[in-house]
């Protein structure tokens, strides 16, 4: 199965405000067996996209196809998808077993066969001993396992996830991630996973699609969107801590290019010719906090130390500069001092240039 989303637009009419364009001409393909994560800030249209694929919402324009079948207007009952909800949505009046076999019961699968499927799924999810309990007596993580099991037993042709882990704590998330990956591998269908958590997106996906304001910003493998963002939004959204930006100006001398930020200049690996049109113009320089070094004030951007967040294996240090607060990933032993003047040195090979108006990546 392959899911094709073509030029999909979803507009909401609201009676007292302007029309809201939740999704704007989105085109995306999810290959068979591919784990695609749709990530973006809240209100970016990712959940609306997922609901359209599930059949719980209908696009205003555009089509959704599963293989060659146009499912755009089909009700959810006829789509053969599975959806994991943020609020888990187990039926509180049914036992774990009844919850898991409900889909099969609807499909008219005989009881002994249902039991077999449920037992298999429960074993895989390690909830075999919970089957006769009621959902309310399970922990959040166990409930989400049951919900996974409920989808697993149906063997759907498309698997959808709507921020299923956002209500769980960090430790449970880390525990559940490999479970989700195992289950989706097991089913082997296209997976659309919606989250606002870039870490979840990075760790689980084959491919990440980043959305903002209803529009697709970039789609690519986790490594690709991390190292080659198409614009400053993607650069900032993907990666932890977020990419730092500096207002700068491109200068050219003897065919090599450099960017100057305040009184600090960084030469670029690019030639002036490659930056055609931007020489002597303002740009935004983006650097990941891991690629910023600490040195003398004369050697870098002047900075005053604000605070350190020690994480054990590394430290996130925050500095105040003329460009605002800048986070730098420093050595675990780093201990900043408010009285000392520091200079932030950008790794020239890791700098990325963005158009200051459109945000599009130049180099």
């Amino acid at each position, binding site marked *: 199965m392959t899911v094709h989303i073509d030029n999909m637009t979803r507009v909401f009419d609201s009676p007292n405000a302007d029309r809201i364009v939740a999704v704007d001409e989105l085109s995306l393909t999810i290959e068979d067996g591919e784990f695609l994560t749709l990530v973006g800030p809240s209100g970016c249209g990712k959940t609306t996209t997922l609901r359209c694929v599930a059949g719980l919402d209908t696009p205003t324009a555009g089509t959704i196809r599963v293989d060659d079948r146009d499912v755009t207007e089909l009700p959810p009952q006829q789509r053969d998808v599975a959806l994991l*909800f943020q609020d888990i949505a187990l039926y509180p009046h049914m036992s774990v077993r009844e919850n898991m076999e409900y889909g099969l019961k*609807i499909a008219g699968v005989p009881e002994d066969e249902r039991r077999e499927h449920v037992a298999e799924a429960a074993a895989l999810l390690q909830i075999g001993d919970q089957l006769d309990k009621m959902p309310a007596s399970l922990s959040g993580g166990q409930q989400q396992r049951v919900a996974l099991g409920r989808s697993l037993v*149906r063997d759907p042709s498309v698997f959808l996830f709507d921020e299923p882990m956002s209500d769980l704590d960090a430790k449970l998330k880390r525990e559940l991630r490999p479970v989700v990956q195992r289950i989706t591998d097991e089913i082997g269908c296209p997976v659309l996973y919606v989250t606002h958590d870039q870490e979840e997106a990075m760790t689980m996906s084959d491919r990440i699609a980043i959305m903002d304001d209803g529009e697709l910003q970039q789609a690519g493998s986790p490594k690709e969107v991390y190292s080659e963002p198409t614009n400053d939004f993607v650069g900032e959204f993907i990666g932890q801590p977020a990419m730092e930006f500096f207002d700068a100006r491109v200068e050219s001398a003897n065919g090599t290019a450099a960017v100057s930020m305040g009184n600090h200049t960084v030469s670029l690996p690019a030639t002036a010719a490659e930056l055609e049109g931007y020489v002597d113009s303002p740009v935004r320089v983006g650097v990941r906090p891991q690629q910023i070094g600490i040195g003398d004030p004369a050697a870098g951007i002047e900075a005053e130390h604000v605070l350190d967040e020690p994480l054990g294996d590394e430290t996130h240090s925050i500095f105040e500069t003329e460009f605002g607060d800048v986070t730098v990933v420093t050595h675990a032993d780093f201990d900043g001092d408010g009285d000392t003047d520091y200079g932030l040195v950008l790794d020239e090979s890791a700098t990325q240039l963005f158009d200051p108006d459109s945000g599009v990546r130049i180099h």
Partner: protein
Amino acid sequence: MSTPTETPSETETEGGTRLSYETRDRLYNLALYGSAALFSAVILFPIYWMVQNAFTDSQTVITEFSWLPSPETVTLDNFSVLAAGAVPRYVINTIVVTAGTIVVVVAVSLVAGYGMARFRFRYKQSFAQFLLLGYMFSPIVLGLPLYLIWSEIGLLNAQIGLVIALSSISMPFAVWLMWKYIQTIPESMEESAWIAGASRWRTFWDVVVPQTKPAIVACALFAFAIAWNDFTFAQILLPSQESTTFAPGIMRLIDQGGYTSWGDIMAVSLLMTVPPLLFAYFLQEYLLKGFEVRTR
């Protein structure tokens, strides 16, 4: 920091006429329990009187007056009226009408409440407010036009006619309650069932209805109280001796001319008081759940 010994002097200086906390507390409790006792007496004494008379020899009820029942006059004879004359008819009619009203109210309020909770339609808010308008009319105002209409279409003296009338006056509350209750059930549960392949109707039946049990009980109890205790509609819409219910029936027992057997009437009354009490007692847990709006 103030020490405990300073506290009394502070109260004195603040105002000499002010009562101490203890006195105020005592007065408050006195007023509270006093008023509770007064209202209990007003409500409970007639019930006591009913019970006492129901078990007292019918001759004694009329000729003598005593606050307490005396052992030699206690009797179960009054209850023989339940098997005689029109009384069994009344009781059966009441049970039929009440059961019918409960079934109609629960069924309609479930569907209507679901519709209001889950579908968007124009003027929904106005519709909800209009529902409550039904309460502004007293039964007698509605009853008389209904009498004319029912006699025209042949529903007069038919229990189904009374069931329809009682259901419609119970409906505003029941629909409103069900609407608010169903709103507290997360929609994602239904969506999850649709995705699993269940139709909207099947989902309603499998996922929504089982979760509305407390609201169903509350609506049923409300409908029960309306139907069981109804006098006005039954008197107007079921005029014949054969078809009428207990409340108008007992009035007829009193009006049977000359001799009124208070002992019999109290026995019948007592019998009709027991079911509502049992109903309320055994379902009170559900009832309270039905009225509390759950938080998500």
